[in-house]
């Protein structure tokens, strides 16, 4: 079995296991509340099996991740989770400035003298709209007012 086929089969295989667990989880629910999730679980399990069968029968498989920067995607996802973690600790303003600077830098923008003021100005504009005009209570940490 080639690598591309194996990658493509992981998707239906994952859903077969996942929906089997969903169906199993409904066994511990009260009968009235389990009806709908069970119907959904069984339906999706059957569909996943069909997908698995079709993918096994398929001959030409393309490697969906070939030439893609998956590491960069994982890094960006990790940074976004770090952003959530730091939000309450360092406040919205600093956290968002750092996130926007990271985004520009990671996407290949190397003019630091431009990127820093742009990150600060963009953050302050959005901060002004949401916090001052629309009165959204953004976490402020050091700069609360």
């Amino acid at each position: 079995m080639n690598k591309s086929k194996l990658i493509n089969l992981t998707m239906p295989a994952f859903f077969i296991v996942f929906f089997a667990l969903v169906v199993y989880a409904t066994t511990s629910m009260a009968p009235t509340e389990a009806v709908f999730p069970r119907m959904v679980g069984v339906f999706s399990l059957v569909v996943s099996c069909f997908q698995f069968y079709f993918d096994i029968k398929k001959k030409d498989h393309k490697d969906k991740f070939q030439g893609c920067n998956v590491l960069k995607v994982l890094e960006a996802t990790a940074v976004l989770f770090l952003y959530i973690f730091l939000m309450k600790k360092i406040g919205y303003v600093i956290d968002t400035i750092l996130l926007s600077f990271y985004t520009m830098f990671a996407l290949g923008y190397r003019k630091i003298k431009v990127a820093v003021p742009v990150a600060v100005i963009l953050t302050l504009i959005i901060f002004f709209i949401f916090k001052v005009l629309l009165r959204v209570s953004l976490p402020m940490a050091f700069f609360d007012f």
Partner: protein
Amino acid sequence: MENILIGLQQFLNPMVFLALMAGTLLGLIVGALPGLNDSITIAVLIPVTFGMDPHVALSLLVGIYCASACGGSIPAVLLEIPGTASAMVTAWDGYPMTLKGKCKQALSLCMTSSFFGGITSAMVLLFFAPILAQWALKFGPPEYFMLAILGMSTVIGMAGKNITKNFLSMGIGLWLACIGMSPTTGMARFTFGTVSLMDGIPLIPRMIGLFGVLSLLKMFDAVGRKKTDAAIASENAAHCTDDRIGLPDRAMCKRLLPTWLKSSFIGNVLGIIPGAGMTMAIFLAYDQAKKANPHLEFGTGVPEGVAAPESANNAVVASSMVPLLSLGIPGNGTSALFLGALTIQGMRTGPTLFNDYPDMAYMIIMGFVLANLAMLPMSLMFCKHLAAPVLKLNPQVLAAGVIMLCVTGSYAYMNNPFHIGVMVVFGVIGYLFWKFDIPQAPLILSTILGGMMESNWVSSMVYADHSPIVFVQRPISLVLLILSVLFLIWPLVQRLKKRITTPKATMA
């Protein structure tokens, strides 16, 4: 006629007229900001309107409600982030138009289609409110369940080559809709002990993740490999000089007229039915436009793909006020807020509103007509001064702006950082769906309709003593069932026809 004049007379007061215009502009702005929508803005403003003159207060709210659905399409077209949930389908063809350097045309079509849908629903509200409201009341749980099935059947209409993946996407969406408290017992299901999931997965962060974060992850995915979508959009916009923001030409209007009419009809019908909602209207309208134009490749930037959801979502706006003004039953969340605003001002909605406060009732109705008339030039001006600078930005700088809007919008939804997490998770789900060629549309629709399906299934079973015959015994439910079957069969018949005719053509 006399009543229409009474309604119009209220706008001779400059404060009432100015409030309507200010509301329309505010609606466009909040609609264009991801995470904020008409409901949030109206909810925030209701306490502010408490001390205002009732006519001024209601005019302001009418303006906001009218324009926000239209404003939501602006970031959907420019950045692939729907400003409001009602604009998510607009992004499917609106953003590809931007990639082709036709963003100004896409924005012009959005605004014109919104105007068309909005003005038709204002007319429906003006002339047919009481009659239609009585009809809408005939909808019980079996009808609502069948309505959700009808919505789901459009998934097949949208199916590409792989129907199994569409069903799989639908199944995942339905499972996601099960997360939270059970509608029957109130017990937590699939919440993994997280209190924030007790109310289910919120729509706004979910949409921001599936559209905004996904577009950003696609940019990260392409680092060092090829030109990103944003870079292509920026280059195309710089080279495109003949494109302009304004009313579409006569030929385009003639081409889009059937789509506008059909989508506005769908929006009006679904708007009147309490709880049916804008989301179903945009999906149905898009699906119908796709079926009516099989020669066009939807999702690649076709004008009909923008016109259909935009006229449908604005057609829902005024028509959702029909049950509220005629019967005192709010058609959706935003019209429920209107009910609150009217109650605060000491008024009771329902049939007596037209007798007790004709000036107020007809002012609201005429407000929808005037707000739509004002919205068209205002929104075109708004796009003219917003679209050009946005597209001139460097793609990496634009990406920084997009991520800031995404995180702030998701947080602002309920002031909860957990929702930023939801946004990120759905961004990753969207990325994996994109990689494995699983369509997103069924996922989005089924997460929205899943809750409605389950609660109405349970109610129908209780009502009919666990007999599914109830779905064919009631005439409206039966009609909806037949329509669902037709929607399901139609694409299969089309494919079969194609298969039969293709070998013949090859042989000839």
